[in-house]
């Protein structure tokens, strides 16, 4: 394990600082989730339970906004599951990198979300014998988990003081945050066409199918392009 210590120390500092930044950025959105939860009829414990137990922002927002727009509890649950399907793909991608087992694995599974996966994959998988990828995943996952829950609590209890989250540009902030996450993953022309294809399919379907489904349908682009390109190589 004799890697160059100075290089690893510098890389480690950079990763931890990025993870903290992501936690802070996500916390801005967590405040608005907490506020949204309690303004749409959930109690503070119910809103907190979503952040602590579900812990996947898009699913949480989908569940709460489906309930708010008059959807049944069952519709809201199914929409949140559909939105959470991508975490299965993230988990599948991260498992061979993380190499965890036992209780550590159960925690890693819960921390597998957009941000932690994107940060884990943004590192060179070979760098420092995989330690860079693992640290990026864990540091981001834990930072987001702590700050997301703290922010949810603050938003839920101080709902009247927040006002309209849109007037603070929070909806634009989350779009930009997701964009900044996918940006470093786009490394080839194929990646770029998958990104555009996924975005276009989601936009085409958004007006005609229930919330959550457009994003899931975008997965088909990855399946088709992945299948075609890997066949061409072999």
């Amino acid at each position, binding site marked *: 394990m004799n890697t160059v210590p100075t290089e690893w120390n510098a890389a480690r500092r950079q990763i931890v600082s990025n993870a903290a930044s992501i936690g802070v950025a996500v916390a801005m959105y967590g405040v608005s989730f907490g506020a949204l939860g309690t303004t749409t009829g959930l109690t503070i414990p119910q809103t907190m339970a979503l952040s602590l137990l579900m812990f996947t922002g898009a699913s949480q927002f989908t569940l709460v906004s489906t309930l708010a727009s008059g959807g049944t509890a069952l519709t809201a649950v199914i929409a949140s599951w559909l939105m959470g399907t991508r975490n299965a793909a993230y*988990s599948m991608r991260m498992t061979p990198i993380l190499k965890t087992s036992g209780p550590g694995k159960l925690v890693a599974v819960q921390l597998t979300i957009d941000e932690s996966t994107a940060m884990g994959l943004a590192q060179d998988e070979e760098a420092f014998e995989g330690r860079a990828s693992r640290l990026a995943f864990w540091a981001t996952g834990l930072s987001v988990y702590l700050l997301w829950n703290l922010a949810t609590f603050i938003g839920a209890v101080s709902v009247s003081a927040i006002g309209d989250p849109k007037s603070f540009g929070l909806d634009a902030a989350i*779009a930009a945050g997701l964009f900044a996450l*996918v940006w470093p993953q786009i490394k080839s022309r194929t990646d770029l066409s998958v990104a555009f294809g996924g975005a276009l399919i989601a936009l085409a379907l958004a007006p005609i199918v229930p919330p959550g489904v457009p994003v899931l349908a975008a997965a088909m682009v990855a399946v088709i392009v992945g299948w075609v390109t890997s066949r061409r190589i072999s």
Partner: protein
Amino acid sequence: MWFAVLAGAAGCYALKYVGSVIPAHVLEQPTVKKIVLLLPISLLSALVAVQTFASSQSLVVDARVPALAAATVALKFKSPFILVVLIAAVTAAALRYFGLAV
């Protein structure tokens, strides 16, 4: 409401768990490998599109679009994550405050 909260949370954890127990050799097939690599790209891009243009079930062009354009410029200049997010938030908030966009 507790039903929705707990059933939703249980299902989302199960989905995360299922992904982690798919056998390793499945991942080593070139097609599966490629698809799994591309999945986060297509899903995150779709989320960006929906977060930028969708308003419940309709598509709109509002303050989020110029905000995302500003974020793109920031990304081109390799700005740190927090700066990209702040630039987008400030752009949208300013446009709304001055009544230039909804």
